[in-house]
């Protein structure tokens, strides 16, 4: 029983990271109808920047905040420079753009910081959380930061005017322009926020997976699985999907014979395929109610 509880809690902790990645993917998908394959690499690069800042002597939380700000600006810049010109281009052109971005960021990180694995600090420590052997303080910190982030985002989208404008721009762009919303900038803002959310995910998972240019590859696949499971049209679904995938991954690795650590990743891919076959809209994918 203790093993089970332990695995579930650990699953929630990594699930928090998947939830962040899924949320970042869904935010961009909502804004421009494309999956950002480079989301993980962007998060990895942000994490390297925070690491670099710490190497230069900036304290953890200052580096954390500074990295969020830089990532936000970088996300907006990427949208303005690369994807705004592609807005009306065919799907495949956009896919090529995302793959190019993936390769550019991945190689640049390797070039600047090389491919050796680096230790990444945690501000929470790795002692048992509250004296319990079930979960470490870092895992608890991952869950805590994610919950705070989600609450903040919920508040932002539900109760601020700019959040309302962003939702409007994503759901019916033409109507949004007709009430005076600059939809183009709302998309850029979405990119900035998604990039910052990815940065949080990267900085929280880095102490677990260690810092290197390919650290987010697996994480992003879990994030995609989470987004597909929850429904690509539903930010809420993406978050729930993230936690579910985290728990499922751990339980499958522990209890299904022969899966172990090596086959965890294929399980995420199998999950994507199963969801697409059985329930393509995902668990919370929106069934838009319409009356004519």
């Amino acid at each position: 029983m203790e093993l089970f509880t332990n695995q579930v809690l650990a699953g929630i902790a990594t699930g928090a990271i998947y939830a962040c990645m899924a949320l970042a993917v869904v935010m961009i998908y909502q804004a421009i109808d494309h999956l950002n394959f480079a989301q993980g690499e962007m998060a990895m690069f942000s994490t390297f920047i925070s690491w670099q800042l710490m190497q230069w002597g900036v304290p953890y939380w200052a580096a954390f905040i500074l990295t969020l700000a830089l990532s936000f600006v970088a996300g907006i810049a990427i949208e303005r420079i690369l994807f705004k010109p592609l807005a009306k281009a065919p799907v495949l052109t956009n896919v090529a753009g995302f793959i190019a971005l993936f390769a550019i960021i991945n190689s640049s990180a390797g070039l600047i910081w090389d491919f050796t694995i680096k230790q990444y600090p945690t501000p929470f420590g790795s002692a048992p959380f509250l004296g319990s052997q079930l979960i470490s303080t870092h895992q608890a910190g991952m869950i805590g930061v994610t919950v705070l982030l989600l609450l903040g985002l919920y508040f932002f989208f539900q109760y601020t005017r700019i959040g309302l404008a962003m939702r409007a721009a994503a759901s019916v762009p033409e109507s949004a322009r007709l009430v005076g919303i600059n939809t183009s900038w709302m998309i850029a803002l979405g990119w900035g926020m998604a990039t910052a959310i990815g940065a949080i995910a990267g900085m929280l998972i880095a102490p677990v997976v260690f810092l290197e240019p390919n650290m987010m590859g697996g994480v992003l696949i879990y994030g995609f699985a989470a987004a597909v499971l929850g429904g690509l049209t539903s930010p809420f679904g993406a978050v729930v999907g993230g936690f579910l995938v985290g728990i499922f991954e751990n339980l499958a690795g522990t209890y299904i014979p022969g899966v172990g650590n090596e086959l965890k990743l294929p399980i995420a891919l199998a999950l994507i395929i199963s969801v697409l076959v059985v329930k393509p809209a995902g668990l919370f994918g929106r069934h838009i109610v319409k009356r004519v």
Partner: protein
Amino acid sequence: MTTLLNVKDLRAYYGQVQALHGLSFSLNEGSLTTLLGANGAGKTTTLRAICNMVRSTGAIEFEGKPLSNRSTESIVRFGIAHVPQGRGTFTTMTVEENLQLGAITRKDSAGIVSDIERMYAHFPVLKQRHTQQAGTLSGGEQQMLAVARALMLRPRLMLLDEPSFGLAPLVVRDLFGILGKINREDRVSILVVEQNAQLALELADQAYVIETGRIVMSGNAKDIANNEEIRKSYLGY
């Protein structure tokens, strides 16, 4: 009477296809003007061109200021509220959020709150349903919501594209009654595009008839309604 909107030699294009062929008309401050014509005559395109939602050439002036080459969202800030065909409802959001979106360019939060209450007084059904998803409203209710959302801008000019479309005749009467009231009491100038010519002419004071992208007739709404020849050849009733 001062001219609020002046359109001169408007030509609009969908790709290679020209939809408007040098259309000119003007609209007086405080007036309720209707743009009539058959399917495909260019009524919707005219409204879309005013808001720069379609490629066009020619001069469009609002209160003497040129609107050409401005983005749709910046034209809204001049006080032009456009209710598009199909109503443009944010169907996944609540009724109240739709109203707030109508006022998204305004800065006076107290005024917005009181205007939402004013809309609920105009359209009591919206108050009953204010937390409901807008997509679940009936067609008539959605049209009320669209008009209310446009009014939340406190517009100088409201552009309405086929407000009667798909609505029961009784609901249309209701809606047109409210439009007349808004025009008289709130001093909002209205340009309404309609296929239901009879009803539109009853409501409007000024009318233009479009055929294949050109104005073919203009004048006082009553005169046009009483002129049997025009009615038979252009308006089909």
